[in-house]
C-alpha cells in the first residue's frame, strides 16, 4: 500500500507538528499535534473524546493523505461507522480505500482467565499489523483504559502501556490516546504519567441549563500553545474550536462609507454614513424603533446589491417582514432575490458558543457584506454578561477580519441612559446610536443620538426620530422659547410659526403697497415741479435769447454802419 504521505515536517524547524484538520485546534496548538508522538486527550464521559479522535483520523486521511488506524476498545466497528456517519464521514469507504483501518478490541473479563506471566504482544502485533498494512501515520487508541477493566495484573499492564507508548514513538506515528477523567487525576489510570508530550483536556459544563464544551491544552512539550479554555462545538460538520480572540488587533480597515438607509442619519454621520466593515450598536428602550433601523440598514444593503444576513432572536422572519412592510420596506423581495437571509432562533436554543458558531457558519457560507443581530440583549439569558461580551468580541473580530459590517441592536432596560450598558459592547463598537424616549406634554417621542462614531465627524444633536407609513425619518428637534420641543408640540410650534409667517408677509405686502403709493405721489409731485421748472427755464431762456439776438443784430448794424462809412470815404477820395 502506498506509504508516501506528505507530512509538514520541513515547515517547522523546531517541533514537527501534524495538523489535526479540526477547525481552530490547529491554531491554538500552533500547527497541530506533535508528529510522531502520542497525545493524551482526556475528559469525562460524553465530552467528545472519541469524536475528536475520529475526526483526527478521518481528516488526516481525507485532507492530509495520512492513513490512520483507529483501535477501538469501546465501540464496535459498525457502531463507530454509524456514529460518525452523522458527521458526514464515510468510514466504510475510507476503509475500502485503505485509508483508515478500524480494529475493535473486545475485552470481556468473563471470557478471560489469567494464569502466570503474559505480556501484551498480541496488541502490539495487531496494531503493528494494522499500521503496516495501510502505511498509517496516525493512530488512535480509544479508550485504552478499558484494558484495565479486562485484565487483572496491573503491574504487567502498566509496564506494557509504557512499552506501548515507547513503541508508538519508535514507529513514528502520531497518536491520540483517549482517557476517561478520573477523580483528582486527569485519567482514571494515570495515563498522563506515560503520555507526557501533549495533554488536552476536554470538559463539558452545564450552567443555567446551557451546556458549554471547553478544551484546554494542559501541556505541550516543546511548543508554545494557547493556555486558555477554548469553547468548542460539535455539530453536523464535526468539531470546531473557537479561539477566544484573535490575539492581535490587525484586521484590515476600510475608509469606504455605506449609507444607513436613512439620508438624514447619513447626514448626521458626516454626510456619508457608516464605515464599511465597522460595528454599529443601536441601543434603546423598548419600542423605540431599533428593529426598524436595523431593517432599514438591511434594506439599504440589499438595494446596493450586497448580501445581508439578519439574525433575529426575538421575532420570526415572517413577523419582521410583516412589520417592516408597514413602514414601507419590502424585505421579502430581497429574500426572493437571494440577497437577504433571515435566521431566527430563540437564544435559549443553544449556548452562546453554538450561536457564535452558527453565525460563523452562515457568514462563511453566504459571504454577506452586512450582518445584523437583533437584539443581542436576549443572549444574556444564556450566558453571563462577561460571556456575552467575550462572544461578541470574538464575533466582531471575526467579522472585521472579513470586512463585514455588523449591526447590533440592544435593549436598554433603564429609561435612564446607562453609559456602560448593552452587554459592555458599547466600548467595542465603532458607532453607537441611541434611540431614546423623550416624554413631554403627555406624549412619548423618540429621540436619536449618536453617542459615538469613530473616525468621522458626527452630529452632536438630538434628532427626533419619526416612524411613518412611508418609513423612518429624522427631524430636527425644535428649539422653541420653551426649550426642546418634539412630537405634536413641535408640530404645533411649527404651525404657529407658519401662521406667524403668513401674517407677517401679509403685513409686509401692505406696507409695500403704501410705499408704492407714496412713491407715486412723490413722483407726481416731482413731475409737476419739473414742469414748472421747465417753464421758468423757458422764460428765462427766452429773454436771454432775445438779448442775444438784440446784441447780434446791433453788432450787425454797427458793422454795417462802419462799412458804409468806409465806403463813403473811398468814394470821397476818388472824387478828389
Amino acid at each position, binding site marked *: 500500500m502506498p506509504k508516501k504521505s506528505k507530512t509538514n515536517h520541513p515547515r517547522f524547524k523546531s517541533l514537527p507538528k501534524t495538523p489535526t484538520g479540526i477547525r481552530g485546534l490547529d491554531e491554538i496548538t500552533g500547527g497541530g499535534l506533535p508528529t510522531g508522538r502520542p497525545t493524551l486527550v482526556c475528559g469525562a464521559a460524553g465530552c467528545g473524546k472519541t469524536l475528536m479522535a475520529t475526526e483526527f483520523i478521518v481528516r488526516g486521511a481525507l485532507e492530509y493523505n495520512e492513513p490512520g488506524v483507529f483501535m477501538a476498545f469501546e465501540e464496535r466497528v459498525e457502531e463507530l461507522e454509524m456514529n460518525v456517519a452523522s458527521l458526514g464521514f464515510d468510514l466504510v469507504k475510507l476503509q475500502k480505500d485503505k485509508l483508515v483501518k478500524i480494529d475493535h478490541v473486545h475485552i470481556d473479563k468473563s*471470557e478471560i482467565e*489469567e*494464569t*502466570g506471566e503474559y505480556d501484551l504482544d*498480541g*496488541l502490539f502485533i495487531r496494531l503493528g499489523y494494522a499500521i503496516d498494512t495501510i502505511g498509517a501515520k496516525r493512530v488512535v487508541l480509544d479508550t485504552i483504559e478499558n484494558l484495565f477493566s479486562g485484565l487483572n495484573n496491573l503491574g504487567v499492564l502498566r509496564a506494557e502501556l509504557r512499552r506501548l507508548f515507547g513503541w508508538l514513538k519508535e514507529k513514528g506515528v502520531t497518536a491520540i490516546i483517549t482517557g476517561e477523567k478520573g477523580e483528582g487525576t486527569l485519567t482514571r489510570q494515570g495515563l498522563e504519567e506515560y503520555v507526557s508530550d501533549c495533554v488536552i483536556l476536554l470538559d463539558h459544563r452545564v450552567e443555567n441549563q446551557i451546556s458549554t464544551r471547553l478544551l484546554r491544552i494542559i501541556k505541550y512539550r516543546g511548543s508554545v500553545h494557547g493556555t486558555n479554555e477554548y469553547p468548542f462545538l460539535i455539530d453536523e460538520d464535526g468539531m470546531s474550536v473557537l479561539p477566544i480572540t484573535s490575539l492581535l488587533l490587525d484586521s484590515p480597515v476600510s475608509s469606504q462609507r455605506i449609507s444607513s438607509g436613512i439620508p438624514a442619519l447619513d447626514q448626521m454621520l458626516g454626510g456619508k454614513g457608516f464605515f464599511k466593515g465597522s460595528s454599529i450598536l443601536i441601543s434603546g428602550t423598548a419600542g423605540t424603533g431599533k428593529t426598524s433601523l436595523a431593517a432599514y440598514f438591511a434594506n439599504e444593503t440589499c438595494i446596493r446589491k450586497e448580501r445581508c444576513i439578519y439574525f433575529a432572536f426575538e421575532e420570526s422572519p415572517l413577523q419582521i417582514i410583516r412589520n417592516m412592510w408597514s413602514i414601507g420596506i419590502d424585505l421579502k423581495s430581497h429574500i426572493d432575490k437571494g440577497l437577504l437571509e433571515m435566521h431566527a432562533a430563540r437564544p435559549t436554543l443553544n449556548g452562546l458558543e453554538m450561536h457564535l458558531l452558527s453565525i460563523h457558519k452562515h457568514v462563511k457560507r453566504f459571504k454577506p457584506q452586512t450582518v445584523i443581530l437583533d437584539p443581542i440583549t436576549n443572549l444574556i439569558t444564556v450566558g453571563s454578561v462577561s460571556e456575552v461580551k467575550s462572544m461578541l468580541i470574538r464575533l466582531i473580530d471575526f467579522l472585521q477580519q472579513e470586512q463585514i459590517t455588523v449591526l447590533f441592536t440592544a435593549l436598554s432596560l433603564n429609561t435612564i441612559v446607562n453609559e456602560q450598558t448593552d452587554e459592555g459592547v458599547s466600548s467595542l463598537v465603532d458607532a453607537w446610536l441611541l434611540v431614546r424616549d423623550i416624554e413631554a406634554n403627555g406624549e412619548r417621542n423618540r429621540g436619536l443620538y449618536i453617542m459615538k462614531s469613530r473616525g468621522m465627524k458626527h452630529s452632536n444633536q438630538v434628532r427626533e426620530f419619526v416612524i411613518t407609513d412611508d418609513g423612518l425619518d429624522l427631524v430636527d428637534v425644535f428649539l422653541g422659547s420653551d426649550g426642546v420641543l418634539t412630537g405634536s408640540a413641535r408640530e404645533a410650534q411649527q404651525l404657529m410659526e407658519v401662521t406667524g409667517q403668513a401674517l407677517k408677509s401679509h403685513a409686509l405686502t401692505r406696507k409695500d403697497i403704501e410705499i408704492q403709493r407714496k412713491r407715486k405721489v412723490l413722483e407726481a409731485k416731482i413731475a409737476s415741479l419739473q414742469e414748472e421748472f421747465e417753464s421758468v427755464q423757458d422764460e428765462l431762456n427766452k429773454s436771454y435769447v432775445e438779448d442775444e439776438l438784440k446784441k447780434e443784430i446791433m453788432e450787425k448794424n454797427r458793422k454795417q454802419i462802419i462799412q458804409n462809412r468806409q465806403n463813403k470815404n473811398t468814394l470821397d477820395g476818388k472824387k478828389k
Partner: protein
Amino acid sequence: MVKKSKSASVKPYKWELRLYIAGNTPKSVTALNNLKKYCEEHLKGEYKIEVIDLLVHPQLAAGDQILAIPTLVRKVPVPIRKIIGDLSNEEKVLVGLNIRPLK
C-alpha cells in the same frame, strides 16, 4: 477473519485448542509445554492443539481478539474461553477450560 484449521478433514475432536504465541519466547515455550502436559493427562486422544505464531501470521490476532501473549483459546466446545499467561497454574487452566469443574 480467516480462521484456518489445518486438519479439518479428520474427525472432529472433542477439544480444539488454539495457542497464540509470538516467537519462541520463554513464556510461549512454557505455555506450550504446560498445555501439552495437561492435555495428555486429562484429554488424551480427544484434543487438538493448534499453535499460531503471530509474528508469522499477524493478521490472525484480531480474529480471536488476542491482546495478551500467550493466549490459549478453547474453540470447541463452545463457548469460547480464553486463558492468558504461561498456564503455570494447572488448577486454573483446567477450571478455565472447563475440563474439571470447580471443586
